């Protein structure tokens, strides 16, 4: 049984990286470094690859297949799927922000210019739920 400890460790490291990243999404230092979970998957794959190199038994092969699959999926998600196109360069630092009026959650109209000379404004454009 002991000889499959590396295979088990590989699975634990790979799964642990995914669970840890998802559960720490609220921590900016974690969330903004998605490469961290890829590093975990790579470490899991390396442990499994070493185990397979020593003994090509099915638990080791299964651990390698699992961690490599996570690495490939995670890499695709991070480098391809989650990529966004460059915004058109309408807005530049140092230029006036275009004024607008939009309804708030109570239906009241909010105009950007109404905050002029009152206080700074932070606009957060977010994708919403669709």
């Amino acid at each position, binding site marked *: 049984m002991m000889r499959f400890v590396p295979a088990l460790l590989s699975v634990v490291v790979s799964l642990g990286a995914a669970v840890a990243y998802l559960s720490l999404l609220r921590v900016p230092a974690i969330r903004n470094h998605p490469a961290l979970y890829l590093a975990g998957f790579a470490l899991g794959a390396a442990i499994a690859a070493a185990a397979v190199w020593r003994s090509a038994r099915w638990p080791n092969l299964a651990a390698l297949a699992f961690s490599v699959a996570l690495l490939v999926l995670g890499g695709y998600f991070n480098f391809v799927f989650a990529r966004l196109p460059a915004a058109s360069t309408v807005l*530049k630092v140092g230029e*006036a922000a275009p004024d607008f009026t939009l309804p708030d959650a109570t239906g009241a109209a909010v105009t950007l210019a109404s*905050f002029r000379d009152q206080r700074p*404004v*932070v*606009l*957060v454009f977010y994708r919403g739920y669709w």
Partner: protein
Amino acid sequence: MQILAISPDPNERSQGLAEKLRARYRFLADRDLAVTRRYGFVHPRGGPSGQDVPIPTTVVIDRRGIVRWLRVADNYQVRPDPADVARAARGL
């Protein structure tokens, strides 16, 4: 500072989110993305069913209405650190 969170979500949804976060945000509904488009932050056909969606972006505007700080996401997993936004807005 005043935080205005803008998305195409209907108001009821945004209100629910505000209550869930207990945030002092004001959530503004840009249903047809007209304002988001005017600001240049639209990801064409970026949604799951091919619809246009906003590119997550944070803009800090001073009291004179001038843009002082801007972060446009190039990966939707990544958002500005609130501490960086607060630092950018401090003293404006």
